[in-house]
């Protein structure tokens, strides 16, 4: 023991603790007896997430110290005892409680205190600050009796404090000296946008206000008087007007301090006494005090390395970029947000309606990102920060990075573009390289990575980026989605299309024997059935194909939860005559089906039993209906608006075109379902821009949109071609659809297909419109074959004894499924729920 030196740390705050935690992982710790003074009544806790205390996070949960940390590492901690003096001659530190410790090396991590402007009355009751757990307890206490709370200071911390007051149920004001909020990080426009957002939340913002006096209030405990003569009654006054380094103890022992405070340190984080270091918010480096944890942590690591004799490691400044959510408003600032750099150029984007403001500061040659401000939407933060920190060259049009239109991914910087040395997590200085090594060593989840590398365990700002790195690395290591269709075919869907076309394969069995193994499964069978149908278009219930079909295709109807089916006849373009409507109603009535108008402009009849399907369809076909293919991965509906025939704004006949298109492509089997719509003018009543294929009439002809999607991940369609005459329009759609059918993956809608396509929309245009692959004619021909061989699947089925056999419920009995039970609701049937089956008297309709 005795040959060990003593290392003393004053202050056990965030940085002091990070220093200890880093030190004990380094072998150098064996050379020291470690002692620390901790003024607060508890060891280090997470100040960054202090506000979480209000939402119920306990002091214990905020703790940054693992259970048993001090004991296990032989660290002596004097809790609730403050160091009061340093004798540098004797190398002795004395505490308030009279403890004296001799040190060989001393680390000052005393942090800072909230600055309270010396306004007369600043020490009145309920004038508080916001830094420690005790401060929060005082706020909570004061809020119990008060109604109004005012924060002095509209910076980062002030706004966070305002949120806390608001959450405590107080009428909240923010008083700021400067003309805008977050003056340090934001420019005027950004500050104004933030102000609007925060005011919308019910917080009153007063800018350019100088408090001159705090005195007795009339309705409230306090009254604030401003230099401009205005007054504000408030119960609580919360000062958040900046921080001041706690350098008194250093000053008293003669260490160099800055003019405006802060213990001066060099790149090794040494003070003017080579045996004394200073780190965190008390330290002044290069004239700067850093009020953020990340730079403090970097200083802590520098000292550990320095003690260990690693002289290369030095502190050379830190990035002050920040991203946070203030009262639910995303705010981020990166680098040189104010464009102070010589020659800097600025791009800005402002959307008053959605309250988004974004600003990019780029170098004179437009090659590099110098800074950025984001308010209202900080989704691009990680990407922009990486451009800035790693000096990555910007894309040709840097404004694409802040303009909305395209999805974030498409303009985002792929994580693959980051060098291994790029810092991903600045709190814990974790590089992309070290994340990759951790993944190589077996981490497969973000949680694993947090444990292994500490990335994303500080401010949390890097979490999305960490996740992207993880995903991309896993993909590279072969955890990638295996592109084989399934265990029976080591091919993609596109490979199979080519095999089937080139080798003229007509059945699943042929394909399986020659190119697959086993019996097949519910993935490859329907997929191959669909490819065969789109190539050769034989009836899907032919003996060779029937067993391949998903149940919906196999019974040409959609199975419902109770094993019954729905029936959806085609109503082209949504146009239907009264007679047809009556016929439909009669069938529904006769078979007691539940009837509903679908989202696709047609009628769905539910509750048909398997054995009833042919009977129902016979009647429908006799009445002039045909299959609506609601069961297939095929063309669903072509939605129309009424268009020029009736509508006073109609530019062209949208109904006729919709009907023509629906009749042309009905029955086409495809990787997933396909939906169309045609609108008669740009008012777009048919919602064509949400469809796989959308057409809108204009004075100059038809405009064609492609690859839209509703459903799970809605996507606006892209404008593909404009001012087309009908012939060209149809030719273009023919090619587009054939190309989709050939090259998309199983269950891939056109939207996802296009987004995953290398080259995206431009490539698609070059293939379909410019015919870059000289496929045009072939694609059109393929479509023509399908059109020429169209048959109403239901008509063929009811005319064929063999096919009708599928629709017997029991092969050996005329009985029916006694588990199908309906109850009545609003005058129609619906399947009985589980509880109803047990407890209620059931009406059986059969």
């Amino acid at each position, binding site marked *: 023991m005795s040959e060990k030196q003593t290392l003393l740390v004053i202050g056990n705050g965030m940085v002091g603790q990070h220093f200890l935690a880093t030190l004990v992982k380094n072998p150098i710790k064996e050379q020291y007896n470690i002692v620390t003074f901790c003024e607060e009544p508890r060891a280090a806790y997470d100040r960054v997430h202090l506000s979480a205390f209000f939402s119920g996070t306990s002091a214990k949960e905020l703790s940054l110290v693992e259970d048993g940390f001090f004991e296990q590492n032989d660290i002596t901690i004097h809790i609730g005892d403050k160091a009061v003096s340093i004798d540098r001659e004797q190398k002795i530190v004395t505490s308030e409680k009279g403890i004296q410790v001799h040190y060989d090396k001393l680390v000052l991590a005393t942090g800072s205190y909230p600055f309270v402007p010396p306004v007369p009355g600043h020490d009145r009751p309920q004038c508080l600050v916001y830094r420690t757990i005790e401060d929060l307890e005082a706020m909570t206490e004061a809020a119990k009796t008060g109604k109004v709370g005012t924060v002095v200071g509209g910076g980062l911390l002030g706004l966070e404090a305002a949120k806390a007051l608001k959450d405590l149920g107080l009428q909240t004001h923010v008083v700021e000296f400067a003309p805008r909020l977050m003056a340090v990080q934001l420019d005027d426009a950004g500050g104004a946008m933030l102000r609007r957002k925060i005011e919308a939340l019910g917080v009153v913002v007063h800018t350019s206000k100088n408090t001159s006096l705090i005195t007795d209030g009339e309705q409230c405990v306090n009254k604030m008087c401003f230099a401009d003569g205005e007054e504000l009654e408030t119960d609580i006054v919360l000062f958040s007007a900046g921080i001041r380094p706690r350098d008194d103890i250093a000053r008293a022992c003669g260490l160099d301090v800055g003019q405006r405070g802060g213990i001066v340190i060099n790149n090794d984080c040494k003070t003017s006494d080579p045996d004394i270091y200073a780190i965190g918010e008390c330290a002044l480096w290069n004239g700067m005090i850093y009020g953020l944890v990340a730079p403090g942590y970097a200083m802590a690591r520098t000292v550990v390395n320095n003690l260990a004799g690693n002289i290369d490691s030095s502190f050379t400044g830190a990035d002050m970029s920040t991203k946070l959510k203030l009262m639910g408003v995303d705010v981020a600032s990166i680098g040189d947000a104010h464009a102070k750099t010589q020659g800097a150029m600025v791009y800005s984007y402002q959307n008053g309606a959605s309250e988004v403001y974004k600003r990019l500061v780029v170098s004179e040659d437009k090659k590099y990102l110098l800074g950025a401000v984001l308010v209202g939407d900080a989704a691009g933060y990680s990407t922009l920060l990486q451009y800035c920190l790693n000096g990555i060259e910007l894309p040709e049009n840097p404004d694409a990075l802040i303009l909305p239109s395209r999805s974030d991914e498409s303009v985002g910087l792929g994580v693959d573009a980051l060098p291994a040395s790029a810092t991903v997590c600045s709190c814990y200085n974790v590089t992309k390289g070290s994340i990759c090594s951790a993944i190589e060593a077996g981490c497969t989840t973000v949680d694993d990575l947090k444990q292994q590398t500490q990335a994303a365990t500080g401010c949390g700002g890097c979490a999305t980026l960490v996740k992207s790195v993880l995903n991309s690395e896993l993909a590279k290591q072969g955890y990638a989605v295996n592109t084989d269709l399934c*265990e*029976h075919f080591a091919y993609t869907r596109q490979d199979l299309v080519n095999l089937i076309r080139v080798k003229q394969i007509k059945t699943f*069995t042929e394909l399986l*024997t020659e190119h697959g193994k*086993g*019996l*097949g*499964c*519910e993935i*490859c*069978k*329907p997929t191959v059935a669909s490819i065969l149908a789109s190539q050769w278009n034989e009836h899907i219930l032919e*003996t060779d194909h*029937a*067993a*391949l*079909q*998903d*149940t919906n295709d*196999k*019974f040409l109807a959609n*199975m419902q*939860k*109770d*094993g019954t089916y729905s029936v959806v006849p085609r109503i082209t373009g949504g146009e239907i005559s009264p007679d047809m409507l009556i016929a439909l109603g009669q069938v529904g009535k006769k078979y007691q089906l539940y009837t509903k108008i679908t989202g696709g402009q047609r009628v769905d009849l539910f509750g048909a039993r*398997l054995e009833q399907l042919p009977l129902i369809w016979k009647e429908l076909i006799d009445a002039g209906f045909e299959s609506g293919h609601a069961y297939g991965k095929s063309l669903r509906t072509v939605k129309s608006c009424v268009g020029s025939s009736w509508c006073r704004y109609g530019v062209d006949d949208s109904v006729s075109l919709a009907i023509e298109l629906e009749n042309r492509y009905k029955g086409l089997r495809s990787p997933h379902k396909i939906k169309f719509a045609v609108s008669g003018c740009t008012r777009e009543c048919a919602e064509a821009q949400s469809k796989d294929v959308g057409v809108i009439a204009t004075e100059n002809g038809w405009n064609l949109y492609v690859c839209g999607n509703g459903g799970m991940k809605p996507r606006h369609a892209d404008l593909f071609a404009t001012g087309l005459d009908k012939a060209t329009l149809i030719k273009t759609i023919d090619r587009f659809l054939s190309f989709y059918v050939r090259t998309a993956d199983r269950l891939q809608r056109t939207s996802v297909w296009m987004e995953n396509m290398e080259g995206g929309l431009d490539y698609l245009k070059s293939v379909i419109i410019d015919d870059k692959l000289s496929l045009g004619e072939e694609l059109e021909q393929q479509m023509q074959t399908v059109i020429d061989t169209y048959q109403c699947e239901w008509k063929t089925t009811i005319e064929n004894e063999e096919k009708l*056999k*599928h629709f*017997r*419920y*029991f*092969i*050996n*009995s005329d*009985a029916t*499924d006694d*588990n199908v039970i309906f109850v009545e609701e609003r005058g129609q049937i619906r399947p009985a729920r*589980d509880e109803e089956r047990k407890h209620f008297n059931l009406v059986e309709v059969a």
Partner: protein
Amino acid sequence: MQWQNVCSVADLAENSGVCALVNGLQVAIFYIPDIRSTNLSLFSNPVYAINNYDPIGKANVLSRGIVGDINGQLIVSSPLYKQHFNLETGRCLENETVAVPVYACRIDEDRVQVDTRLVAPLRQLIKQGTE
């Protein structure tokens, strides 16, 4: 009463299922002539019978599922939510604790026969699985 004649082979659907009513039970019968070209089953029995009720989707639909093999197990995939049931053991591949009753099934000349007493070793399994 053990083996009962249910139907003729021509009533079955190749590489697919049909449903039969046997002793008041809904029995899904799968006919897989292609099994002979694989090494999936020791005896290359072309017919399999299980109860038609899908305990997960809670409806009588299993005969309408797609048959095939997954990891060397002969399966039917439920048409409702696509879980796989092993045609020989009745076990659900996605959920160990779920199983459907399996019955003995054979082709005798042209007749398809089913014995609806549970296949012996499975009785216990189903008891465990459903309790």
